[in-house]
């Protein structure tokens, strides 16, 4: 053991010396070429495809901007003022809130329940089930939205047939948003299953063993031990879902086109609608900027959460392993 470690440290010393030596020598031309080209191309694409467009969008949000008749007139903060007085915007905001809360709750609860069931020693065919639950997540969203439009069809749709209902899901103001929420949960819960499972497997076994030795019931173990340990993962899923659902619009575009009335208007769909149906580019840019600010705040929060989500299990795994070595 000691011989091995000393040999290893000697080797490490050697490579450290070598790498110091190579670093002192001028970097080879091929390295400089590769590095400069790569950094140059990345910077150019950042500037051309992101920075300049964001600048244009920011300036455009203070203009009456219509690409069809070429209008681009400065109007100050009119777009923002109009936005806050627009009932559709407030309806879209409250719809986005309801949609987000329900979809996140469904995704998290279903994801957690199923991940815990798969984690349990009682479950069989784990790989098979994991494959099945993750399936909708990797299917193309436009096609899935079409599939669900057919599922909700009042004449022949599988949902009414299966449950013996007579509901016109997508054309009834009471159900249209709920219908989109259900489809979104179905599409997305599998991702939460995979993440929660990863979180569960990161919990060291001796913690769970200790709980069972102490005679804790399954429910108490879950509530007082597992759930607190999963909390960072839970926050991570909630915040990334929030960001994702703030940008959701394809399911609305395909399934209801914002209707009936304004019952399924979401903020991102409203941007699409204002920009590429009504061609109010300035107005759409103003909404987009507000959305960008909300998303930036949530992302900043999510990175912080993610950091702690990572640190916690890693630290635990590390102490777990070092314990194994000493024993």
């Amino acid at each position: 053991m000691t011989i091995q470690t000393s040999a290893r440290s000697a080797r490490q010393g050697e490579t450290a010396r070598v790498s110091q030596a190579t670093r002192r020598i001028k970097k080879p031309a091929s390295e400089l070429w590769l590095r400069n080209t790569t950094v140059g191309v990345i910077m150019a694409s950042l500037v051309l495809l992101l920075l300049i467009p964001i600048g244009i969008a920011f300036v455009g949000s203070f203009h009456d901007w219509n690409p069809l008749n070429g209008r681009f007139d400065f109007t100050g903060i009119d777009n923002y003022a109009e936005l806050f007085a627009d009932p559709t915007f407030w309806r879209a905001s409250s719809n986005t809130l309801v949609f987000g809360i329900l979809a996140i709750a469904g995704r998290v609860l279903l994801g957690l329940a199923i991940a815990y069931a798969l984690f349990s020693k009682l479950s069989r065919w784990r790989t098979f089930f994991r494959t099945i639950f993750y399936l909708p997540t990797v299917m193309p969203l436009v096609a899935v939205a079409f599939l669900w439009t057919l599922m909700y069809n009042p004449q022949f749709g599988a949902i009414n047939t299966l449950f013996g209902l007579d509901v016109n899901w997508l054309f009834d103001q009471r159900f249209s948003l709920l219908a989109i929420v259900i489809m979104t949960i179905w599409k997305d819960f599998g991702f939460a299953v995979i993440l929660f499972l990863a979180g569960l497997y990161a919990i060291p076994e001796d913690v769970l063993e200790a709980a069972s030795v102490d005679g804790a019931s399954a429910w108490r173990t879950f509530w007082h031990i597992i759930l607190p340990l999963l909390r960072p993962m839970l926050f991570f899923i909630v915040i990334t879902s929030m960001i994702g659902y703030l940008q959701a619009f394809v399911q609305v575009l395909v399934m209801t086109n914002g209707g009936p009335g304004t019952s399924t208007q979401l903020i991102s769909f409203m941007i699409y609608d204002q920009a590429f149906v009504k061609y109010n580019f300035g107005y759409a840019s103003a909404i987009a900027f507000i959305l960008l600010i909300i998303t930036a705040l949530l992302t900043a929060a999510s990175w912080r959460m993610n950091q702690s989500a990572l640190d916690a299990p890693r630290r635990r795994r590390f102490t777990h392993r070092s314990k194994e070595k000493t024993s």
Partner: protein
Amino acid sequence: MKVRVFALNAGLLLVGGIVVLPFFWMILSAFKSNSEILSFDQSFLPREWTLENFVSIQTKLDFFRLFFNSVFLSVTITALSVYTSLVGGFVFAKYTFRGRGALFAVILSTMMITWAVVIIPRYTIFRSIGLTDSYASIIIPAVISAFGIFMMRQSMDAIPDEILEAARIDGASEWFIFHRIVAPMSVNAISALSIFQFLWVWEDYLWPYLMISSEEKQVLAVGLTTFRGQYGTDYGGLFAATTLAIVPVLVVYILFQRRFIAGAASAALKG
């Protein structure tokens, strides 16, 4: 104990059934005639199997053309962007230079920029320089992927520097080190990224819808909405077209499901 095992697995099976049922229903309905789909007496299996829906969507909108356009674009963009991500990841993981940390932070922060802010100016720019209705307009914005560079850097960080230094001492060029040593060691990250990238191009709707105007260049995701706009009551055709858009991804997923799932967990966990 036995009862609990049964209850738990029955519950899982039920949710699994809810997940796969729409797919089976869609595929089977694609083989039903329109009159059977609309009949009062619904059945899960087609009473009479027919291919007429596939024939009709083909004659109405040339769906196989759209299908191959989507395959072409997805494969091209995936190949290009995975390669640029590899190079970018390599440079950020293995070279030290001034401003590396700052530039990488900027690349990371671009991932949170919403599509809605960028798409209007991009549309205006691409129109004014006359790039519309060409595949260049679809490919150019997708070639460099912040997510890809990030993912590759994370994976290449794990490759020990000693291997590279040893190769350099043996006289290997950086080009050789990248292509023959580092890239082959990143196979897992490459396959995970390829799968995601392929899916993102395959399901992208808005950008091709805005850029591509000629029918023979259109992609499948947009073709679906065009088809519904023109033949809204041809439900059999809709089932067949949707099946055509989903089943290839389904097959790829079943073949590579292990990598898909590992990729999903790592993409989220490595943040």
